[in-house]
């Protein structure tokens, strides 16, 4: 495993010396604490962890909701969009009264209403090769829930280069795909898809549609993966690409291996600097949604 990844995981799993929960925290997290795999120590690990959620949309909403409910101490939310009426069918962080507001502000308000003990950090930006590393270095683990391939590849590459565990996912119509990337240990997103598809090759959710509840299910799986990374428990979707067909209600894990020729995570990568790919289509901020919102 890459030294950077080991350092990140070591920080997450460092010993806990005190279980100084408040009465409110004992009650709030009691259903976690009684789990043998979590306990007070695991709950403290969750409380001191930080997670960056890329996208406050169809995936980012359930992810951020469950991470906040679980008590992940610092949650960064990246999104430069504003809430639109068409978002509300699946983006459950936002409400009708939030229409027109910045998604990061709407998300922050919702998450703090659920759990005021947390630090919710809004990033009202579109990630690019210039800003991503400065944001990423503040976080233990990342969730990719954006709506476009340029961001997915940028996040994958930045996480590989910095050794940051990341849950990647995509959604389309009734189906979703999830992969957990532990850099240096399992395959990365580029091991499966070396290059982004040509702009326009894949219709966006805006064009093709997406079942809101399916997006929620995929996001909840991503949140579960993040909590398992933080706890160091269970088996991750690392090396298993999980396909979810909500219409037939089937989950199919596909075994995937690291690509020895992977352009970013192989021994001799051909990509050593972050790339800003062109967006498949330019979408006005108020009318979001290609492949993952």
């Amino acid at each position, binding site marked *: 495993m890459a030294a950077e990844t080991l350092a990140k995981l070591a920080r997450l799993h460092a010993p806990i010396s*005190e*279980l100084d*929960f408040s009465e409110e925290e*004992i*009650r709030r997290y*009691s259903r976690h*604490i*009684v789990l*043998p795999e979590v*306990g*007070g*120590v695991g709950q403290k690990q969750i409380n001191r962890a930080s997670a960056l959620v890329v996208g406050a949309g169809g995936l980012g909403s359930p992810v951020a909701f469950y991470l906040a409910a679980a008590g992940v101490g610092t949650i960064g939310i990246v999104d430069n969009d504003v809430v639109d009426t068409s978002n509300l069918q699946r983006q459950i962080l936002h409400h009708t009264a939030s229409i027109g507001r910045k998604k990061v502000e709407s998300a922050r308000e919702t998450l703090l209403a659920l759990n005021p003990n947390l630090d919710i950090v809004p990033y009202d930006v579109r990630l690019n090769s210039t800003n991503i590393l400065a944001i990423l270095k503040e976080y233990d683990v990342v969730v990719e829930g954006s709506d476009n391939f340029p961001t997915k590849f940028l996040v994958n590459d930045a996480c590989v280069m910095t050794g940051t565990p990341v849950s990647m996912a995509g959604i389309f119509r009734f189906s979703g795909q999830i992969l957990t990337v532990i850099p240096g240990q399992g395959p990365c997103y580029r091991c499966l898809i070396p290059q982004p598809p040509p702009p326009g090759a894949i219709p966006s959710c805006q064009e093709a549609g997406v079942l809101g509840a399916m997006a929620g299910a995929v996001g909840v799986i991503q949140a579960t993966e993040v909590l398992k990374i933080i706890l160091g428990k269970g088996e991750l979707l690392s090396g298993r690409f999980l396909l979810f067909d909500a219409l037939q209600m089937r989950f199919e894990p596909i075994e995937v291996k690291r690509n020895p020729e992977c352009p970013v995570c192989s021994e001799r990568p051909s990509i050593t600097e972050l790339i800003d790919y062109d967006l498949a289509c330019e979408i006005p901020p108020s009318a979001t949604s290609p492949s993952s919102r």
Partner: protein
Amino acid sequence: MADEALIDKELNLQGEVCPYTFVKSKLALEMMQPGQVLRVLVDNDESAANVPRSMQNEGHDIIGVTKLNEKNWQITVRKS
């Protein structure tokens, strides 16, 4: 009943109810060393039944469950 001298930590949970009697007992045990003994005081029958059962499910040894008077119970458990 465990000898007073063998008790490493005591937790007075009188006034507390399930599941928090177990949650707080579990938190106390987590910070103790294997083999150390925790004594928990509870004041309701439900906790007196549930706490030892849950502790046992977690693999700890229940040394004793003793009714002290009309409503108070003492649960003594050794951390596994």
